[in-house]
């Protein structure tokens, strides 16, 4: 069969039981990159925009915005968003390095996944402790 005649899609096994999927570490970094990106889009982006608007309006408006975010629930959301930003940032840099063929072998790819997960969690804990 020539390349033109061959069907583009092949029958491949589909196994999408979310509870039973065991992702390798690079896969975990990848799906968390997607989840953190979505969280930043739906929650982080509007929240930061309102914050920027309040802060540029006046010092009083910004203080009111800050005290509205001083509740424990808001702080948990903020820490979650900070982690999302940090993970998205670190995992993104890892993907950029993979694009230029840095660390694409199995071992370094696994190691960089651990580094990404660890650094973003550690920085989020540091910022979270200060915020709390």
């Amino acid at each position, binding site marked *: 069969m020539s*390349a*033109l005649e*061959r069907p*583009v899609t*092949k029958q491949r096994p589909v196994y999408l039981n979310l509870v039973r999927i065991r992702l390798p570490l690079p896969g975990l970094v990848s799906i968390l990159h*997607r989840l953190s*990106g*979505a969280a*930043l*889009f739906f929650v982080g*982006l509007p929240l930061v*925009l309102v914050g*920027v*608007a309040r*802060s*540029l*309006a006046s*010092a009083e408006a*910004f203080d009111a915005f800050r005290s509205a975010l001083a509740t424990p629930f808001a702080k948990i959301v903020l820490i979650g968003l900070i982690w999302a930003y940090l993970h998205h*940032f670190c995992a*993104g*840099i890892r993907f*950029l390095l993979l*694009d230029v063929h840095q660390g694409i072998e199995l071992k370094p790819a696994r190691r960089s996944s651990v580094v990404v997960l660890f650094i973003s969690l550690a920085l989020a804990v540091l910022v979270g402790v200060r915020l709390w």
Partner: protein
Amino acid sequence: MVKRIVVGAHYGLKDWLVQRVTALVMVLYTLLWLAIAWYKGGVDYALWQALFANGAFRVATMLFWLALLWHAWVGMRDIWMDYLKPTALRLTVETLTVLTLLAYAVWLLDLLWGPR
């Protein structure tokens, strides 16, 4: 390995590249903020106001936001394409996403250059 003949259609190369270039712009802007905070020993309200009074800083800030909004579009489009299979639903949600991001851009222009 499936060998496709990659001609005559958009295969997402532009979006792939946009995602990376806009990411680098955002990294640079993040580093700019870290440098300012480190150099000034923190950011208080007076410094915040002074920064946004500076024309070059406002341009850099707007470039960052445009990069972020474009980046968000490519990323959210990837997500919608993966999970929303009915075409009508996907097109509706994609349109809403674009409109939201454009509204954010207009809002930011007004915040940065509009009357205070």
